[in-house]
């Protein structure tokens, strides 16, 4: 069931028609439409949005850690349509000991590095990602720095040979 | 002055030539050969062959040997390993070589009058003008044939090198 502010928003309506289980929530806070998607239907929804509503660019992929709530991670996608000059935010909530969402690199190849960064910083797995490894931190780094339970200061690290 | 200069250059030439054979790394050998060529160029000058001396430096030392060094660097050639055949040459070859050298020396000594001396300036027709005159009159046909040969060599070299590029 679509939340109130998104009743007239065409992409949301279209996705809802496609599959009622796809959208689990949403809002249009400060004029920015946001859809909460079910991770299982993420790829399907992305494909639809890209084809039907010309969201040909993925501007960024990032995540927010809602620790200690559960599910704790929100993976955030910012889509951009040059044709309609519109932006759209998608969110997937994941949690558990091994959080994972499907990778959208098959839809937008530019999501590659952003998903690597989220993996590096938050430890969220992206299924079917072509090259999922750390991007900013060293390969043998332990922990995921942008998690809320990771200390801002005082982390000790020694380089391995 | 002349004998001193000759002996010095001859010594350099022989030492460089020996070094060419003894050194294991091709770059060392190539530079020794350049040394031989340089000293020979000066000996040519003593014999009055000015043009040949310059050509020796420009063509031999400046082009052919640079090509050698270029190839050695390109292939990153390392020092070689000697095989058994090399040892044979060492055992039997050296005495035989000495024999051959002695024979040639004997023939030279016997065939030429010993008193004939080379003086610097004793032959003054080795300048570019004289060479050019001979080359374009008496030796015109060989000259043209040689230019065709060079053309063939260029084409051949390009064909051979092409093969590995494609």
């Amino acid at each position: 069931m679509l939340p109130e502010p998104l009743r007239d928003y065409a992409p949301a309506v279209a996705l809802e028609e496609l599959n009622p289980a796809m959208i689990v929530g949403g809002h249009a806070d400060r004029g920015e439409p946001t859809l909460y998607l079910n991770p299982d239907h993420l790829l399907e929804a992305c494909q639809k949005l890209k084809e039907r509503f010309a969201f040909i660019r993925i501007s960024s992929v990032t995540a927010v850690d809602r620790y200690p709530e559960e599910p704790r991670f929100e993976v955030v996608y910012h889509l951009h349509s040059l044709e309609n000059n519109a932006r759209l935010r998608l969110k997937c909530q994941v949690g558990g000991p091994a959080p994972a969402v499907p990778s959208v690199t098959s839809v937008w190849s530019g999501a590659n590095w952003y998903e690597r960064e989220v993996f590096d910083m938050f430890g969220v797995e992206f299924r079917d990602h072509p090259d999922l490894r750390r991007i900013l931190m060293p390969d043998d780094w332990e922990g995921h720095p942008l998690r809320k339970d990771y200390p801002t200061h005082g982390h000790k690290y020694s380089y391995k040979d | 002055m002349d004998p001193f200069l000759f002996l010095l250059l001859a010594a350099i030439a022989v030492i460089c030539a020996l070094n060419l054979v003894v050194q294991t790394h091709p770059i060392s050998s190539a530079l020794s050969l350049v040394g031989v060529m340089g000293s020979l160029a000066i000996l040519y000058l003593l014999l009055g062959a000015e043009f040949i001396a310059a050509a020796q430096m420009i063509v031999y030392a400046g082009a052919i040997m640079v090509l050698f060094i270029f190839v050695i660097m390109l292939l990153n050639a390392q020092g070689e390993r000697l095989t058994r055949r090399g040892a044979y040459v060492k055992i039997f070859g050296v005495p035989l070589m000495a024999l051959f050298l002695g024979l040639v020396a004997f023939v030279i000594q016997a065939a030429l009058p010993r008193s004939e001396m080379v003086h610097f300036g004793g032959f003054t027709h080795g300048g570019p003008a004289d060479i050019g005159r001979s080359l374009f009159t008496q030796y015109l046909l060989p000259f043209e044939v040689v230019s065709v040969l060079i053309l063939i060599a260029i084409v051949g070299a390009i064909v051979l090198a092409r093969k590995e590029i494609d």
Partner: protein
Amino acid sequence: MPEVSPEISEEVSTAGTETAETRKRRLTVNMGPQHPSTHGVLRVVIDLDGEVITSAQPDIGYLHTGIEKQCEAINWSQVTTLTDRVDYLANLSNNLVYALAVEKLIGDIEIPPKAQWMRVLLAELQRISSHLVWLGTHALDLGAMSMLFYCFREREQVLKLFEMFSGQRMMTSYIRVGGLALEPPRGWHQRVKNFVDIFPSRIDEYEALLEHNPIWLERTQGVGYISVDDMLAEGVTGPMIRAAGLPWDIRKNEPYSSYDKFDFKVATRTANDVYARYQVRMEEMRQSTRIIQQALEGMPEGPWKADYQHVTLPDREKMKTQMEALIYHFKIVTEGFRVPPGEVYQAVESPRGEIAYYVVSDGTSKPYRVFMRTPSFGNVQSIGTLLKGKLIADSIASMGSMDFVLGDVDR
């Protein structure tokens, strides 16, 4: 540019399946992280087949400073100084996008027109200075070393302007949430006017030096092609994409900070090569000059920061005379202001492309999450596609035409 010791490793691939016919010289060249032409600590692993690049794999993270993590530990107002450090050649654009994002979160804050005009002016000055650095170093990469000095001559003037109003040449932190940090000093506008008066003739000078030079044309024209679709897919933004003929400029498409009140053209070219990117940047510098002129002429009178006592610091006079103002000053300085909960995504056009901050607030005086979508990150991601199938000798010109800043990539 410091010359540092080379890091190059080379290995002939020894794949066993190759036959004598198909065996070719295959090299893996490791360019960087310390190489004079990668402009920072970027490492690119290049596989070569002869002279042709078969694959290029950029490796980043050598300049990772954890700015996003640090933002979560400090006040909303303190973050401004960190944004300077993200893209140190376009710090005012970063200040601007952060300020805009937080103002959008606060919602009912009204930025006075003078502050908006000043923001536009500063962002355009910043664009000029950033493009000048690019032009100088790019020309230096191709061997024209005098260009560097000519470009830095003008950049020096811009930096002097920055120093004049903020006391800092590069890390200005001048655009704050709610307006500006200070009022520009007396005579500053005159200095800016002097600069924009002479600057177009200087652009002509650069063009005269480069565009009539056959070597420059030969090294840039037809070099570094990458298709528009690839660029859009890989997340390339900014002058690169405009040089391919797509007139996408956030200043026009999603106007912010009263850009819609200015008259300027979006520079585009269609050749989609290094030369077109150069032309686009030159044209952008001209347009920026136009914008600055308009901003100077139409500079509105009025306050230079919002009258919003919960966020902006009160005037010195008020603080000394009014108890209430003193309390707000004390609260903002010690504890920081609070921002209503919510999330926004704000994009602006930086000299390098789309720079966007995604800011999440949980209602406290510290940001819950600040995500920086930096243009260089997307641009550098496309290096693999850009270099593939090109000559190794062109890689420096191609990568240079991207104008990436490694601080912007790694954050």
